[in-house]
C-alpha cells in the first residue's frame, strides 16, 4: 500500500468520525437546553470550547455567543477548519483521492452526504430543522462505517481506516468528558433539586456519544460523574471508551508492517490510563485529559514516522 494513500484513508476515517461526533454534540446540546432549569447557566459557547477554537470564533463573531452564531460556527462555517461542513469537505477530498482503493459506494455515499448538507445548510439555523438534518447526518456516517466493515476485506486499507476512526473517537471522548467536568465544576447548585440536574447533565453526555444505554447495562445505580468517567475512560467493552479504542488499536496493529513501536506506545498509554484517574470537578481532571490528548497526538506522529512519511534510502 502506498504511504500517501495510507495517510489519506487514515484522515478520511478521522474526518468522518469527526463529522458524526460533531453532529451528535450539537444535537444533544440542543435537547439538553430544553431539560435544564432556567436557573442553571448553560451556554452554547461550551460547544465551541470543546473543539478548541475559541480564538477563531471571536475573530468572526466577537463576543456575540448566541445560539445562532455558535451553531453556525460549529456546523456550517467553512472558514472554521473544525466545523462539521469543513470536516465533511475534507473527508470528501480524501476519498476523492483514494477512491481507487475503496468500494465504489464509499465515494457516492460521502459525496451524496456532502451535497445534501451543502444544499440544506440553512437548516442548521433553526432548532426544528437542525435536529432532523443532524439525525440524517449521524445516520449517514453510521451507514458509511457499516458499509465499509460489511464490504471491505480486512486489509491494510481497512486497518488504516480503523486506526483513524479509533484515534479520533478516543480524542473526542476526552473532550466530551472535559466539557462535562468543566461544566459541573462551574455550577453553583442552589439546592438538592437542582443538584439532581448534574445527573441530567451526565446522562446527556452519555447520550451524546450513544453511550447511555450501554452505561445503564453496566451500572444500575443513579448516574454519577465518577462512574461515567470510569466508564468512558477505562471500560474494556464499550466501543467508545478510551481503553477500548486503545485495545482495538493493539488488536489490529500487529498485522501492519513494522508496527512494534506503535504496539509498545499504545500498550504503555493503556496501562497509564488504567492506573490514573482525575477527579470530577477538579483541575486535575482537566490536566489528565489534556495529557491523554497529547499522548494521542504523539501516536498520530508515530504513524507518520512508521508509515506515512518514513525516511527511506533513496
Amino acid at each position: 500500500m502506498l504511504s500517501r494513500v495510507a495517510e489519506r484513508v487514515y484522515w478520511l476515517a478521522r474526518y468522518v468520525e469527526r463529522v458524526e461526533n460533531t453532529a451528535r454534540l450539537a444535537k444533544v446540546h440542543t435537547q439538553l437546553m430544553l431539560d435544564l432549569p432556567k436557573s442553571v447557566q448553560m451556554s452554547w459557547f461550551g460547544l465551541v470550547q470543546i473543539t478548541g477554537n475559541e480564538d477563531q470564533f471571536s475573530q468572526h463573531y466577537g463576543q456575540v455567543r448566541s445560539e445562532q452564531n455558535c451553531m453556525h460556527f460549529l456546523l456550517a462555517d467553512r472558514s472554521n477548519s473544525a466545523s462539521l461542513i469543513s470536516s465533511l469537505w475534507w473527508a470528501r477530498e480524501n476519498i476523492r483521492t483514494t477512491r481507487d482503493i475503496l468500494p465504489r459506494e464509499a465515494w457516492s455515499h460521502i459525496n451524496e452526504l456532502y451535497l445534501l448538507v451543502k444544499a440544506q445548510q440553512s437548516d442548521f439555523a433553526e432548532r426544528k430543522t437542525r435536529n432532523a438534518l443532524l439525525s440524517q447526518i449521524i445516520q449517514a456516517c453510521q451507514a458509511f462505517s457499516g458499509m465499509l466493515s460489511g464490504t471491505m476485506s480486512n486489509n491494510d486499507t481497512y486497518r488504516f481506516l480503523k486506526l483513524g476512526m479509533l484515534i479520533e473517537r478516543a480524542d473526542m471522548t476526552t473532550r466530551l468528558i472535559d466539557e462535562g467536568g468543566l461544566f459541573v465544576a462551574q455550577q453553583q447548585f442552589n439546592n438538592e433539586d437542582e443538584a439532581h440536574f448534574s445527573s441530567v447533565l451526565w446522562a446527556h453526555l452519555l447520550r451524546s456519544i450513544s453511550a447511555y444505554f450501554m452505561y445503564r447495562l453496566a451500572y444500575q445505580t443513579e448516574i454519577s460523574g465518577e462512574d461515567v468517567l470510569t466508564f468512558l475512560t477505562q471500560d474494556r467493552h464499550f466501543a467508545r471508551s478510551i481503553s477500548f479504542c486503545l485495545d482495538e488499536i493493539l488488536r489490529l496493529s500487529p498485522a501492519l508492517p513494522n508496527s512494534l513501536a506503535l504496539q509498545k506506545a499504545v500498550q504503555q498509554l493503556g496501562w497509564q490510563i488504567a492506573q490514573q484517574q482525575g477527579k470530577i470537578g477538579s483541575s486535575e481532571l482537566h490536566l489528565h485529559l489534556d495529557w491523554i490528548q497529547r499522548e494521542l497526538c504523539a501516536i498520530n506522529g508515530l504513524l507518520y514516522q512508521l508509515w506515512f512519511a518514513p525516511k527511506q534510502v533513496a
Partner: protein
Amino acid sequence: MLKSLENYPLNGFYDEALATPDHPRPAAAELFKRLEDTPFDSFQEMQKGAETAIAQLGISFTVYSDKGNIDRLWPFDVFPRTIEAGEWQKISSGLKQRLRALNRFIEDVYNEQAIFKAGIMPLQIIASSKDYRPECQGMQLKHNAWAAICGSDLVRDAAGKIYVLEDNLRVPSGVSYMLENRAVMKQVMPEVFRDLNILPVNQYPLQLLSMLRSLCTSDCADPEVVVLTPGIYNSAYYEHAYLAHEMGVELVEGSDLLVLSDNYVYMRNIDGLKRVDVIYRRIDDAFMDPEVFRADSTLGVPGLMRAWRAGKVAIANAPGCGVADDKVVYAYVPEMIRFYLGEEPLIENVPTYLCDRQEERDYVLEHLAELVVKPANESGGYGLLIGPRATAAELADFRQRILNNPRNYIAQPTLNLSTVPTLCEANLEPRHVDLRPFILQGEKSFVTAGGLTRVALQKGSLVVNSSQGGGSKDTWIVVTEESI
C-alpha cells in the same frame, strides 16, 4: 415513429437516428418502437433522473483555479446515439489498421526513418515537430506499442460517410465518461436495454489492464502496473482514479515513485519500496522527468527516462509518441498504411490541405472563408478558425499567421457533421455530434464498442469539446437482424 419527433427538422444533414422524416435508420428502429408513445415530458424526466445520478455518482470534470475548484457535473444528454453493429465492425477494423500503421511510423521515426528515405514524407516535418524527442532515438518497443492507447475522433458527413478527423496519441481522455454514460443510461432506460441487443462497453478496463500487462519488459508472471496521475488538480483526475479502481491497480503521483541507481522504478509503500513494471502515465512528456525535460516539474519522477531507456520499465503511452499526434503527420496516415502495411486504408481522412505546400497554401488563402484552419499541435478545439463563421478581422489575422508559420497550419473543408435528436428546451432537436472510440495496441488490438459521443449543445454549433460547452451521449452499437 416517435411521437416526440414529429416536426423534427432534418435540414440536409445526415441524421444518425432518422433516415427520412418518417423512417428511423435500422439501428434506431427498435429504440423507436420502445419509445413510440413516450411524450416529451417523459424524456425530460429521464434527463432529470440522469442528472441526479450523475450528481450522486460525482461524475465531474473539474476546473481548478486560484479561487478554488469548480466541480462541473458531466454534461449528458439522455437520447442515445445508435450505430449498426455491422457498420461498426468495419470501422473498428479500420481503426486497428490505422493505429498499427501509426505505431510502425513512430518506431521508424526514432530508428531507420525509412518512410523519409523512401521519399513518401519530407524529413523536415519531424525536424520541425515540437513533440519529436531526440531522447527516444534507437528505442524499440515490445509489440511496437508506442501509442498503446489511442482516441481517434470520427465524424460523419452529409452523405453518411465516416472520416477520421484526428488521432489523439498523447494522453487521450474520455473513456471513463463513455463507461459512466452507459451506467447512467442503464438506470434511466432499463427496459430498453433488456429488449435491445446493445453491445456492452464495460470490458474496457480489463482489456486495458491486459494490454498494459503485455507491455512488461521482463517476463515476470505478475507485473506491477500503476496509473500515474498529475494529481487531483488535473481536470481528468476523475478518470485516472476511475480507471485505476476498475483495474485494481495503484493510482500514484510522481512523489510516490522513485528511480534507484539500479534504474528500476519503485513506489513508496507502507512496508518499504516496491518495484513497478508498467506505468500508464496520464501526464505529458514535458512533466514526466525533471532530469530530462522540464526541470521545474514537480509532477514527474526524476530518472524515469533513464529507467525507460534501460528497459527496466514500460511506459504507456511511450515518451515521444506525440510526434505522430500532429495534424500535418495526420495528413500522411493513408500513405503510412500503404507504406508499412501494404494495405488500403479502411477509413479515410478528412481531405486536408497542408499550408507548408505552396500550391495548397495558395488554395487555402484563397478559400479561407470556406475552410476550417487548425494549428498542427493543439488539442481541445483551441486556436482554430472556422471560416464561414469568422469575421473579416479574424480571417485577416489567420492569413498572417499562416504566412508567418505555414508548417504549423492545416486546413480542411467545413464538415456538415451528422446530427442526433437531443433534448432541448421544448423539443427534441437535431444537434451535431462526433465520436471518440478508444483503441488499444499491445500484444493484441482492441477497440471499444462505440465510444464517447460528444454533442454540440448549442443550436448550429460544431464545437463538441466539453471544455467549450459540449455535452455527451451514450453510444449504442446495436445488433439488428440485418447484422446477424
